[in-house]
């Protein structure tokens, strides 16, 4: 018993101290008015939440985050699956290609965003140079003037960084499928498309659900890319940026906590759908 407790203690302390205690405190505080600029911390019930629902700035940030999630999940999953399928076919030098593939993921998000900021720069950026050179645009464009373009470009920078993770997760899933199954499918009469749909896809469902969940959670928590590329611009402001601005710029701490709790519930809810609908445990033994 005592030994068991010793083994369980570290995870209890770490998870409790770093996850559950802060979560509990934030949840409780979100029902009070915690504001260093004002006296007392009275209980306000759902007032913080009610204000968030009606606040148009917050609504805009929800819309932006939703756009990030859709772009990121779709692009990371399709791109990551494509990359994983290619890597799975390569017999020689796969280790090196894999190392190159995960490189963007290893970059600190801020560094990654700054690199792309230079690429998108209206006057000396690479993107304008290339498009001008190809004759696709007539003059330099300010990319972040248009909200749709801005949201897409911020997503792209995020996807560039996070897609390798999806690719690695799916590659691992693909490699766990015995080659004999594909041979059996070939003999059974499945072409490449049916073999992918009826054999590959169901067998990587577990990895796919994990990949989708992490894409969603990270896109929900998008901060660095939008902040570096466009600062507090309302066009690209994500929910987490809004949390930061509310809590630490406007000093309405409890309001920020309420918003962060909503963001957490949002990303958990979407991930839950993947786990219930996509995830399938497949054992080969």
């Amino acid at each position: 018993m005592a030994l068991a407790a010793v083994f369980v203690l570290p995870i209890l302390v770490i998870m409790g101290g770093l996850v559950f205690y802060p979560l509990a405190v934030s949840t409780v505080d979100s029902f009070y008015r915690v504001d260093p600029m004002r006296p007392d911390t009275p209980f306000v019930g759902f007032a913080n939440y009610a204000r968030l629902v009606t606040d148009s700035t917050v609504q805009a940030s929800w819309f932006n985050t939703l756009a990030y999630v859709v772009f990121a999940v779709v692009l990371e999953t399709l791109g990551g699956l494509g990359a994983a399928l290619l890597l799975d076919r390569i017999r020689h030098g796969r280790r090196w290609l894999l190392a190159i593939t995960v490189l963007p993921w290893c970059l600190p998000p801020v560094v990654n965003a700054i690199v792309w900021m230079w690429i998108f720069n209206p006057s000396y950026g690479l993107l304008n140079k290339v498009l001008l050179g190809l004759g696709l645009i007539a003059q330099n464009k300010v990319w972040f003037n248009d909200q749709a373009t801005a949201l897409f470009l911020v997503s792209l920078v995020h996807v560039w960084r996070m897609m390798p993770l999806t690719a690695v997760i799916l590659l691992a899933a693909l490699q766990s499928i015995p080659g004999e199954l594909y041979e059996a499918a070939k003999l059974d009469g499945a072409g490449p498309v049916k073999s992918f749909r009826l054999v590959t896809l169901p067998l990587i469902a577990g990895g796919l659900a994990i990949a989708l969940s992490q894409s969603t959670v990270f896109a929900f928590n998008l901060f660095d890319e939008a902040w570096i590329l466009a600062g507090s611009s309302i066009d690209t402001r994500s929910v987490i940026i809004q949390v930061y601005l509310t809590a630490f710029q406007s000093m309405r701490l409890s309001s920020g906590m309420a918003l962060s709790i909503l963001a957490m519930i949002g990303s958990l809810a979407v991930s839950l759908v993947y786990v219930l609908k996509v995830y399938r445990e497949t054992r080969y033994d």
Partner: protein
Amino acid sequence: MATVDIRGLVKRYGTHQVIQGVDLSIGDGEFVSLIGASGCGKSTLLRMIAGLEEISGGTITINGRVVNAVPPKSRDIAMVFQNYALYPHLTAAENMGFSLKLRNVPKPDIRKAVGDAADMLGLTPYLGRYPRQLSGGQRQRVAMGRAIVRNPSVFLFDEPLSNLDAKLRVQMRSEIKLLQRRLGTTSIYVTHDQIEAMTMSDRIVILNAGRVEQSGAPLDLYDTPANLFVATFIGSPAMNLIEAVAVRDEGRPVAVTQDGLRFGLDGVADIREAMPLTLGMRPGHFDLSREAAVGSMPFAIDVVEQTGAESYVSGTLGAHRMMIAHSGRFATAAGPAFVTLQPGGLHVFDRTTGRRLS
């Protein structure tokens, strides 16, 4: 129902040639085993027939149609894999019906075909289970069912029993044989287990380093092996071999070993004076006794292994180590004894070419 005809078949990986010109004709409904040591090319040959390996040279003809360029699914064959290769995300019934589903066969027809095969294999209670919920033997049966449901012209088996325990292997051996006889489907069976090959096949093809060493009925291979490789490969315990030289003794050909043992070579063709020979004697073709008899040779026993029905007696005959299989029990341990080679128990091979002289 189909015949399979293989002509001058060659498989190369780069410069390495693993199948070196195999010719083989398999009759309609025949059960043929391909047997040989690891790396002899037997699995490669089977996979070439299945269409899973490209053909580097020669032709494969199934039922009169050259299939070199025909994709696996159109060759009208079904294969049972060594590790079964069942789809882990599909139930036993879905696994068995998978090929029919891909061909857009109507659902009731699939259900009937799967049900019939399951009946035949005793799988009916397990149709709703996933492979991981089945025992090794049941998985093996599902893999067989998957092949049967397609009603192919040819069954290909790639060491299907090697993952089962010894007892189950013996049971499945006769089940597969019975099933094949009932369905009458041409079958090609790869194994490294000579007992499986001997007991199941109409014909055995022995492969060595990508070539056919001999092809024939199981007992023919046992009784008249064409060369030394076949002689030592078939039969357990393996044939005893001793080296000798042909001489003439009073006008009759005799094989003499270095330590002076003499074996008459009457009736053996193509014997030349001073020809180097290898003599083969199956362990079971000796009579063992404590007393000397006419024509018996002294045999010094050192180990007796009892298996119950048979005793494996090791010892030395002259200067040669020999194994003798004595039917029944041979109670005494080490010591002197006498052996007599039974009539017709001598196999004579040309030591230079390894070929049988008869």
